């Protein structure tokens, strides 16, 4: 279709609107209610344009483009129409920009400057509306609302919580939930889509003006999706996190843990090295002492009696540095799978067995979905949003069939439950029930939670899924690989791709120790040094330490080195604490569940004497060399040098922002009998808001978690009045030396 916009010829696809044609022509059309990712409402009327032969201006967002249209956006009548619309929008909008948090990044402010009349003719009283309670993350000023209904459409369409609506009409119109709590993990996005200051971020309220902030492009590490984010900081504090558009990963959205766990960055920080004294107390020490003690211990330790475990937030650079250090010592007892399981080693060493092979964007092509042992809403909220998007699109003649084996949960779309234990898989393997639906689909999609691999029957489960995938034709096509593993840890796929797992068959055929064996060895006193690289969720990624046996208690007499940034489980059981930078305080490579390598940039400096992880490991290698009289020093002094080595050793990590292409044929069948356990799948992420050492100390996340629990148990009203007070403690951080303040 060819159109003319302001004399610019433009070609657009069928089904485009006049607005989209204007965008394609590079012509700016002011708008409020239109949002690229939401349905069209056409109620703000700001996008009026002139169409040749039309009797009056048309709302371009809701008007289908047609061949040969001649559109003008620069005529006096369009300008007058915009001024008129603007004047009406401003009639009831308060003139409180100086005290409004949206000020400086407000669509209404900007557009009234660009397209408004400049003065007001309205002399009567403006209406005022009472505030709404929309959860602990949203601060409302409903008087400022212009009724664009973007938030209503976002909640209904993307978040899948149909609780927000526009009631009454005319001057009494208001956005409300009618007293129901919004149980969504995308509350922050409601603030994002609001074009005015009606919905603002409660934790960020009155913290800063947009022009005061420094921006750093980064990647979310709170789950395995690798959402693209922008970190806004001022001085030495991260003040907010916003999503960056990435169509293939997170689109326009991020979930609330990615956005609002940042207040955890200033709590419980490890800002100097600590050493456990003989009386059992952790006491402050300095880097020299810490490095010397560690080097002494390592120099005198047999390679067999050392081990390293990496946690969920580790970046590829530090994983690589630690792996190199242990390799240089001849030690193979390293594991990045702190919850256990065999993904990435043995029979499951082929990448295709532990990647999200269809890619996240590929979900939109699937025409039948099986979820097994995972709750995508909690383990990868953006992947769940993509599944919902696919669900809403539907399939030819009906709804997208989605079935689940695992604990039932509200996933925001219709799911058929096939049972709660892997035995349901046996029926699928027999080709009955939902297996017929999968087999009949062109592009069947199977998603399994990576945490399920840590079950006792994890290997049987994976073999069963391998067979099922082949049986229903989810794999083997040249263009479609529907076998997907959903990782909920940001560090996992990077660790697996670089082989941060115990070596097979090395060490005289004995091989290295994995997580479970390392903990066993520590308990049996067969281990002298255990290095935890941010490993705070050993044995199980469940954060609730009451609900499980605590593997940290088993570490016994082992000298435990904890390298990390928060005083969580790992640090409290450590003998030596090496303070490290948290994710916004360092550059890092992270690999998401698709195997997409992405870079995170540094936004702020680490507090106190904390240092970047790779630098700490490099310093230990230096101290170790000094100790043992010229041993191996890690061959890099700068991050670029480290990356060069990393990319040379692992070329798969060198290509940025591309999902891995894994070959199905590399995953070989095992002849083993499938012995599924009757044990039900347990949720891998029992509390969405509290999964890592940062979110566990975040007050905002604690509040969100409490509200969700209350909402799900039906007592939401009890916590009703807690509309956000600023959660940020903006006092300067403790533990900064004057030099460091200067350096920043």
């Amino acid at each position, binding site marked *: 279709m060819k159109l003319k916009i302001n004399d610019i010829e433009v070609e657009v696809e069928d089904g485009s609107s006049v607005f989209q044609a204007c965008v394609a022509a590079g012509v700016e059309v002011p708008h409020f209610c239109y949002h690229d990712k939401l349905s069209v409402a056409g109620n703000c009327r700001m996008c009026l344009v002139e169409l040749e032969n039309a009797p009056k201006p048309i709302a371009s967002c809701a008007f289908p483009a047609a061949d040969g249209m001649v559109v003008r956006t620069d005529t006096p009548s369009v300008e007058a129409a915009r001024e008129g619309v603007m004047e009406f929008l401003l009639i009831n909008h308060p003139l409180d920009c100086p005290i409004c948090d949206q000020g400086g990044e407000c669509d209404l402010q900007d557009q009234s400057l660009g397209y408004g009349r400049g003065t007001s003719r309205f002399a009567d009283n403006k209406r005022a509306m009472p505030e709404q309670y929309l959860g602990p993350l949203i601060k409302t000023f409903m008087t400022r609302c212009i009724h664009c209904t973007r938030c209503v459409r976002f909640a*209904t369409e993307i978040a899948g919580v*149909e*609780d927000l*609506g*526009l*009631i*009454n*009409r005319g001057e009494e119109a208001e956005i409300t*939930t*009618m007293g129901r709590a919004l149980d969504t993990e995308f509350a922050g996005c409601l603030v994002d889509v609001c074009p005015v200051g009606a919905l603002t971020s409660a934790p960020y309220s009155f913290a800063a003006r947009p022009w005061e902030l420094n921006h750093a492009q980064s990647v979310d590490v709170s789950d395995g999706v690798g959402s693209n984010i922008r970190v806004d900081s001022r001085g030495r504090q991260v003040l907010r996190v916003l999503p960056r558009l990435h169509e293939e990963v997170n689109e326009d959205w991020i979930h609330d843990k990615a956005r609002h766990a940042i207040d955890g960055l200033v709590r419980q920080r490890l800002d100097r090295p600590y050493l456990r004294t003989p009386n059992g107390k952790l006491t402050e020490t300095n880097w020299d002492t810490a490095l010397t003690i560690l080097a002494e211990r390592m120099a005198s330790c047999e390679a067999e009696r050392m081990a390293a475990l990496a946690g969920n937030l580790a970046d590829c650079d530090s994983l690589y540095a630690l792996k190199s250090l242990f390799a240089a010592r001849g030690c193979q007892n390293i594991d990045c799978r702190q919850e256990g399981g065999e993904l990435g080693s043995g029979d499951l060493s082929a990448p295709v067995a532990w990647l999200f092979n269809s890619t996240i964007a590929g979900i939109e092509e699937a025409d039948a979905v099986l979820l097994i042992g995972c709750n995508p809403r909690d383990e990868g909220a953006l992947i769940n949003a993509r599944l919902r998007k696919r669900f809403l699109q539907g399939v030819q003649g009906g709804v997208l069939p989605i079935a689940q084996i695992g604990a039932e949960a509200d996933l925001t779309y219709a799911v058929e439950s096939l049972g709660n234990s892997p035995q349901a898989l046996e029926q699928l393997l027999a080709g009955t029930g939902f297996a017929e639906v999968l087999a009949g689909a062109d592009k069947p999609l199977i998603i399994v939670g990576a945490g399920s691999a840590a079950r006792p029957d994890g290997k049987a489960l994976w073999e069963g899924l391998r067979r099922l995938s082949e049986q229903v034709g989810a794999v083997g096509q040249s263009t479609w690989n529907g076998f997907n593993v959903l990782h909920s840890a940001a560090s996992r796929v990077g660790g697996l791709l670089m082989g941060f797992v115990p070596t097979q068959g090395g060490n005289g055929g004995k091989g290295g120790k994995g997580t479970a064996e390392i903990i066993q060895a520590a308990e049996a006193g067969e281990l002298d040094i255990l290095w935890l690289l941010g490993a705070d969720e050993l044995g199980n990624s469940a954060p609730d330490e009451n609900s499980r046996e605590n593997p940290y208690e088993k570490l016994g007499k082992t000298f435990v080195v904890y390298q990390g940034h928060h005083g969580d489980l790992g640090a409290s059981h450590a003998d030596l604490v090496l303070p490290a930078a948290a994710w916004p305080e360092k550059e890092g490579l992270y690999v998401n569940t698709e195997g997409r390598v992405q870079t995170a940039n540094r936004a702020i400096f680490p507090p106190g004497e904390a240092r970047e992880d790779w630098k700490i490991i490099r310093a230990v290698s230096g101290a170790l060399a000094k100790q043992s009289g010229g041993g191996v020093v890690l061959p890099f002094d700068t991050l670029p040098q480290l990356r060069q080595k990393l990319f040379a050793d692992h070329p798969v990590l060198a290509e940025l922002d591309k999902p891995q292409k894994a070959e199905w044929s590399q995953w070989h069948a095992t002849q083993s009998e499938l012995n599924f356990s009757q044990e039900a799948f347990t949720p891998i992420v029992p509390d969405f808001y509290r999964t890592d050492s940062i979110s566990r100390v975040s007050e905002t996340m604690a509040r969100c978690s409490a509200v969700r629990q209350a909402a799900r148990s039906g007592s939401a009203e009890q916590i009703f009045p807690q509309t956000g007070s600023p959660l940020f403690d903006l006092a300067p951080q403790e533990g900064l030396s004057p030099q460091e303040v200067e350096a920043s």
Partner: protein
Amino acid sequence: MTTAPIVKTSSWSPPHKAGNAEAQEAFHFSEENRAKLNQAIARYPEGRAASAVLWALYLAQDQNGGWLSEAAIVHVAEVLAMAPIRVQEVARFYTMLNTENKGRWRVQVCRTTPCWLRGSDKITAACLKAAGVSHLGEVSADGAVSVEEVECLGGCCNAPVMQINDREYYEDLSPEQAGEIVRDLRQDKLPTHSGSQTGRIASEPVGDKP
């Protein structure tokens, strides 16, 4: 042509005394109303039951004594497989749907041009006075009556006109008659007859026949 006699009011009984706690707590369509609603749903394609929401709300309001309680709205949402907030949006948009208890008798005075020219303002004032309320929409202290102004009821030839509980018309009103009706309603006494209060038949001309 002489037409049928005035409609007998005996065919309709006073609505049940809604507004008390029990009535608000639970709401289920009566079998009769459910059957009517099913007919309405059947008019739309499969899976489009939500299209019948206005008819469902009308039936629910009628059954619930002239207003839609929260329970009624939730029940409609359940029956039509909609989110309750979507039904709320509809219920609160239309002025003929009440989301507050308006009393057992809702007096709806027409205020559109012909009735207004024939003195609807005075009718409204008389009704308000008889109901003992100060403004439109307010329910009288005894919970019996509320007065509201509505747009054209289509009885222009017998203006001024008012309607009671979406049903019976009272035409050719004088302020005195209107006040009398409202006072009777407060005692749950139905007017003896609906239609023209001057005895006019079929909108015949007033005065001597030619």
